[in-house]
C-alpha cells in the first residue's frame, strides 16, 4: 500500500512520498514481535529479571556472601531483618544469593553464546561463501564434532584446568557453535548468488569485505533467533555443571549451585530450592517464547 511509484516521478507523487514513512524490514519485524503477546511479555520479564540480577543486589541490605552472624540458621522471610526471602542454613540472604547467582548464570549464558556466535558465524559464512574444499573440510569437521559427546569434554576440561569462570564460558561456547555454523552456511549459500553480491564483487570488494559487509548483515535475522535460543541452553549447561559441583566454585554462586544447595536442605526450607529453581525456569521459558516470537517476526514465510 505504501509502494512509491518510481517510474513516473510526478511532482505530486514525490510530495506524497515524503509524507509516507518508509518501513524497513527490521521495523516490520519489530511490529510483528510486539503484536505477539507471549513474546512481548517474555521480553518484559527478561528485562526485569536482568535488571534485578545486575542492579538490585547493590540496593539490598545484605550481600550474597555475607553471613548474618546473629542468625546462623535458616530464617523465615522478614522485612525487619532485611532478609526479604529469608536466609539459607548458613545465615546468608537468599534473595541476594539468588540475584547474584542469576547475574553469574546470565553472564555465562551471554558470553558463551557470544563465543559460539563468533566461531559459528565466521565458520559458517566462510564455508558457505568460499565453497569447494574449504567448505568440505569445515563441514566434515562440524559433522565430526556432532558425533562427539561434548558435555563429557566440557566436564573433563573443567576438572583438569580448574573450575574458573573464563574457562567455563569459553568451553561451553566452543561446543555450542556447531548448529550456528550450519545455519549460517545454509543462509550464505542462498545469498552468495544474489545480484548484490555480484555487484559488490564487480565493484572490487575483497572476499573478506563481502563476507563482513554483505553476507553477515544479511544473515543477522536468523542469527538473532538462534542466539535467543542458545542463551537458555548455555544457562542449562552451566547450571547442570554447577549443580554437579563441576562448575562455578564457592564463594561465587550460580542458579545451578543454589538449586543444588536448596535440594540438600529442602526438607526443612523448601524455599531455598523453589526460589532459584522458579526464577531459572521462568527465565528459560521466557527465552524460549522470545526465540519463537523472534522466529515468527523475522521469518514470516516460516509461519
Amino acid at each position, binding site marked *: 500500500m505504501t509502494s512509491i511509484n518510481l517510474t513516473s516521478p510526478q511532482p505530486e507523487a514525490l510530495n506524497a512520498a515524503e509524507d509516507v514513512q518508509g518501513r524497513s524490514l527490521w521495523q516490520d519485524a519489530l511490529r510483528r514481535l510486539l503484536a505477539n503477546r507471549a513474546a512481548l511479555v517474555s521480553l518484559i520479564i527478561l528485562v526485569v529479571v536482568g535488571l534485578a540480577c545486575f542492579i538490585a543486589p547493590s540496593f539490598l541490605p545484605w550481600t550474597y556472601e555475607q553471613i548474618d552472624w546473629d542468625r546462623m540458621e535458616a530464617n523465615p522471610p522478614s522485612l525487619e531483618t532485611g532478609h526479604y526471602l529469608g536466609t539459607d542454613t548458613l545465615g546468608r540472604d537468599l534473595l541476594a544469593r539468588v540475584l547474584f547467582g542469576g547475574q553469574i548464570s546470565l553472564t555465562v549464558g551471554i558470553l558463551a553464546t557470544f563465543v559460539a556466535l563468533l566461531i559459528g558465524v565466521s565458520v559458517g559464512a566462510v564455508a558457505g561463501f568460499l565453497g569447494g574444499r574449504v567448505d568440505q573440510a569445515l563441514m566434515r569437521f562440524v559433522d*565430526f564434532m556432532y*558425533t562427539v559427546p561434548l558435555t563429557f569434554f566440557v566436564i*573433563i576440561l573443567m576438572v583438569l584446568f580448574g573450575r574458573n569462570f573464563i574457562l567455563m564460558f569459553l568451553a561451553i561456547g566452543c561446543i555450542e557453535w556447531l548448529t550456528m555454523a550450519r545455519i549460517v552456511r545454509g543462509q550464505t549459500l542462498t545469498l552468495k548468488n544474489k545480484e548484490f553480491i555480484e555487484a559488490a564483487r564487480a565493484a572490487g570488494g575483497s572476499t573478506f569485505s563481502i563476507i563482513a559487509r554483505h553476507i553477515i548483515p544479511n544473515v543477522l535475522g536468523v542469527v538473532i533467533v538462534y542466539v535467543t535460543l542458545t542463551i537458555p541452553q548455555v544457562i542449562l549447561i552451566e*547450571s547442570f555443571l554447577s*549443580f554437579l559441583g*563441576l562448575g562455578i566454585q564457592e564463594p561465587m554462586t550460580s542458579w545451578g549451585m543454589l538449586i543444588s544447595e536448596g535440594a540438600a536442605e529442602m526438607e526443612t526450607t523448601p524455599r531455598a530450592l523453589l526460589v532459584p529453581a522458579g526464577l531459572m525456569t521462568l527465565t528459560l521459558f521466557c527465552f524460549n517464547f522470545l526465540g519463537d516470537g523472534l522466529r515468527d517476526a523475522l521469518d514470516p514465510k516460516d509461519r
Partner: protein
Amino acid sequence: MLSFIARRVLIAIPTLWAIITVCFFLMRLAPGGPFDGDAPVPPEILANLRAAYNLDKPVMVQYVDYMANLARGDFGPSFKYKDFTVNELIAQGFPVSAQNGLSALILAIIIGIPCGILAALRQNSVADYTVMGFSMTGIVVPGFVMAPVLILIFSIGLKDTPFQLPAGTWEGGAFKHRILPVFCLSLLYIAYLARITRASMIEALRQNYVRTARAKGLPFHQVVVRHALKTAMIPVVTFLGPGIAFLLTGSMVIETIFQLPGIGRYFVQGALNRDYTLVMGVTILSASLIITMNIIVDVMYGILDPRVRHD
C-alpha cells in the same frame, strides 16, 4: 546396504580413535595429578604410586600401552577406587544405568508417541494445547529442577501416606525405588517425542499418498497407523538413536540426585576425584554407544523410507 554399513563403521573407527586420543592427552596435559590429596604425599611413595599406575614412563609410551590395553578391552585400574579396575566398575554400573534407561525409554515411547499422534489428529484443540504445554514444560524444566521438586512432593510432602515414594535409596533396585528416577529420566524424552511426533504426523497427514489411501476408502485409523505413522517415525528415530545412547549410559544428574549406583554417577564421582582412567572409560563407552546408535539410525532410514537409498 552392507557396503553402506561397512563404510559407516570405517568412518566410526577414526572418530572413536580421535576421541580417545584427545581425551588421553588432555588428561596428561592437566596440571596436578590424581594423587594430589589434601596431605602432601612423600616423594618416594608418590614415585611408587606413579610406577604402579604406569605414570612414570614417557607420555608416548603410556599412550601406546593404553591403546594396546584398550584394544584388548582393558580400561586399566581405577585411580581412586583402589582394588577395582575400570572394567569392574563399569560392569557394576552399566546394568543399573541400562535398566533404568530402558525403562525410561519404554515409558517415553508409550506416553510420548500416542500423545503426539493425538495432538496431531486434533490439531489446535484443547488436547493439542494440553499436550504441547506439558511438552514445553518437559523440555524447558531441567532434570535437576524437576527431580528435587518431585522428591519434595512425593517423598517429603506425601510422607506417611500410601503414595509416598522413596528417594535417594536404591535397595538393589526394588520397584518402588525406581519409580521416581525412571519417571524423571523419561520426562524429557516424553516431551520431545510428543513434540516431534506431532510435527511429523501433521506433515505426513498432508501428503498425497495419505490422501490416496483415504480416497481408496480405507478407514481413517488404518491410514494413520499404516501409512502416515511409518514416515512420521523418521524424525522420531533420528531423535531416539542418540537419545537411547544417552539413556543407557545413564543420566549424571538423575543418578547423582537419587544416588543410583550407575555409570553416570561414577563419571561424576570420577571427575570430582580426578579418577582419570574411570572418566576415560565412561567417556569411551558413551562415545561408542552414541556412534553405534547413529549408524543404526541411518540404516533405519532406509527401512522406514524407501526414498532414502544407501548406495
